[in-house]
């Protein structure tokens, strides 16, 4: 049975929003940890950079309520005005899941529903410990979601959800790395000093890359190696390369079923071959910021190409 275009788009957005919810959860967790290691002013800086990652840098200078770690946590986790808060992400994912209910397994639906119920009645992030408890709960429910989709049949429903996850994941990792390099480093801090090292650890923690780094490089944290890991290493599931890799694989699954390919396939393959050939030296030559911005733009183009190719409404 061929799939409705609207259902396909529901599935794709489930993938995107569940991924975004998980990423934001990890961002909050790591930022709390970073804040607890540093002085008050630096902690505030950590939250400002976390907001920058989700494209809400303006919030910290905005009018109204004065900025604090609390307001930042609330904005990232619960704000209904923030369409990318964890609460909003889980709400939108669940709305899409309700609409696509009949192509989801019971297990996947339950995982999404449970994720939403975890946060539905929260109105305040509470103190740091309370937020951490919420983070633990959310990590557990998003792991449940990943587990549930891993057990799905490998057919369109699975492919579209994973495709959404991969497009979102690439975008999230690129933003995270970009902010780290260009907004995070406070003036006057010695590169390689204590704070710097904490921040690198934080970044790795967000992408579950601490152990990966140790296993792959077997040396002390070096900024360019972290960039290498997050951009080029296929072993790290949250690297740009790994996301691009799986995107190509998923699109070719559709192609081999329907016998047709489209602009999204070509775009995804071109991006992958560039990442396959790239090295840290290229990053240095072109500039990391430029490379990441290009990736983010190209990812958005790919998103539109997918929508067109599968006739999303």
């Amino acid at each position, binding site marked *: *049975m*061929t*799939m*409705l*275009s*609207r*259902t*396909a788009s529901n599935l794709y957005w489930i993938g995107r929003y569940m991924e975004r919810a998980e990423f934001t959860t990890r961002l909050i967790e790591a930022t709390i940890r970073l804040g607890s290691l540093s002085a008050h002013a630096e902690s505030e800086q950590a939250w400002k950079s976390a907001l920058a990652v989700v494209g809400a840098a303006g919030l910290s200078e905005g009018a109204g309520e004065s900025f604090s770690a609390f307001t930042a946590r609330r904005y990232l986790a619960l704000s209904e005005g923030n369409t990318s808060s964890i609460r909003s992400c889980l709400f939108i994912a669940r*709305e899409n899941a*309700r*609409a696509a*209910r*009949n*192509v989801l397994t*019971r297990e996947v*639906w*339950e995982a999404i*529903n*449970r994720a939403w119920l975890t946060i539905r009645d929260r109105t305040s992030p509470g103190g740091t410990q309370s937020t951490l408890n919420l983070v633990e709960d959310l990590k557990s429910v998003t792991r449940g979601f990943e587990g549930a989709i891993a057990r799905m049949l490998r057919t*369109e429903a699975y492919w579209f959800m994973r495709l959404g996850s991969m497009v979102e994941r690439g975008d999230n990792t690129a933003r995270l790395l970009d902010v780290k390099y260009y907004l995070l480093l406070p003036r006057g801090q010695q590169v390689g000093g204590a704070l710097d090292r904490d921040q690198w650890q934080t970044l790795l923690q967000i992408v579950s890359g601490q152990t990966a780094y140790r296993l792959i490089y077997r040396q002390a944290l070096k900024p360019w190696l972290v960039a290498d890991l997050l951009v080029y290493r296929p072993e790290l599931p949250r690297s740009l390369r790994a996301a691009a890799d799986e995107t190509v694989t998923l699109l070719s699954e*559709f192609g081999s079923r*329907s016998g047709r390919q489209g602009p999204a396939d070509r775009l995804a393959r071109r991006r992958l071959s560039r990442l396959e050939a790239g090295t840290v030296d290229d990053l240095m030559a072109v500039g990391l910021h430029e490379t990441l911005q290009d990736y983010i733009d190209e990812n958005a183009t790919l998103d539109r190409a997918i929508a067109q190719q*599968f*006739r999303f*409404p």
Partner: protein
Amino acid sequence: MSLTSPFDEVWGLSKGEAPREGFEPLARWFEETPASELTRRQQAAEAAFRSLGITFNVYGDEEAAERIIPFDIIPRVFSAKEWDNLSAGLEQRVRAINAFVEDCYGARRIIADGVVPADIVLGNSQFCIPAVGASPPHGIYAHIAGIDLIRTGPDEFFVLEDNARTPSGVSYMLENREAMLRLCPELFDLFPVRPVDAYPELLRDTLQSVAPPGSREPRCVLLTPGHHNSAFYEHSFLANNAGIELVEGRDLEVDDDIVWMRTIDGRVRVDVIYRRIDDAFLDPLVFRPDSMLGVTGIMAAYMAGNVTLVNAPGTGIADDKAIYSYMPDIVRYYTGEEAKLPNVETWRCREPQALQYTLDNLEKLVVKLVDGSGGYGMLVGPTASKAEIETFRAALKAEPARYIAQPTLALSTVPTITDKGIAPRHVDFRPFVLTGANGVTTVPGGLTRVALREGSLVVNSSQGGGTKDSFILAPEGGLS
């Protein structure tokens, strides 16, 4: 208010002294299972329903936008003999309903023969003028009917309502059974319960059997208003289990009187649409122009015979409570037999004598809108306040033709778990009858709805009702 000792499905008229014959094991089960254990299982069932998202929306109630329907784990049990009688009556009635609706949109013999007055059909708000002259495959209009039954004594069953538009609730029949099998498996050792899980397949077979002539491998879809509709869970559940596509109006388009759905591989022709949206929203070209739920041009495709709509447009006349009052005549007219399932005595307020009787006895009667449903717009005289009765009196006098009245019946009760232990609560029963090219089928089961408030006779989920599983026993079972 409580009526004088209603019939209890387990205890009969013994007031809890002795179970009816064959019900001893059930009585022993719920009396010997510790209350805390029953409560625990009930909570487990409700938690499972919530996590499955088996919810319904209550219109006009923002707070409770998504509620689960309360579930009671003490089942309602029908003996094989009771069911045989019921199913024969149901099938007879649904045959008559289909013949009647076909006649109304075709030759109108029943009107010409003076059995049913013309104005009650042609002047009916549910009469669908654009469907006049349609010729759906096999002359079937009400492919899926839900017939609401009530019981007042050991052998007294009545039809309370016919639902021939888009009856809902069948997913509860199936999910309640799932929950019972999981939570109370021992009951299935005590009783030879007939399975209900064939319903989705029967539904699919029914849909395929009524495809337009000439369509090989007909493609069937379920058309839902979308996931904000109160019955959306059921729509997706049925589509999923029947293996048909779940579509919204915006997924379909009509081109040259042919219906297509939009898919990732391009458009695909649709042959049969099990639509779960009302006539009024079906096609903005023909019905409500502001409908965002329907499909432009779908009525033209239907009238051209290129697509089958299930149920066909216009079946609402059979739901009308004024026409209901003629059902014994309608059954006799088309089947040549007396109705096996009687109606509840009904006064048509359009008739002056009946109106006078109704006005004189409002505090004893149940008064209903002829086209109402869901327990909205009805008066239950014995429990109504003076003010409510006076409001209804005024409404009745203003537009008598919009109302019918019925006696307040002592609906049978079933033991039910309440805050104060197990207590009798009134129930009704909605079995589902399918009609396809190969005949009429009733799955051995249905939806038992229970009024959870003490003494209440209103079982509608929108009015605080709950549900129970309904066991139909196999012939060799313990019940006579």
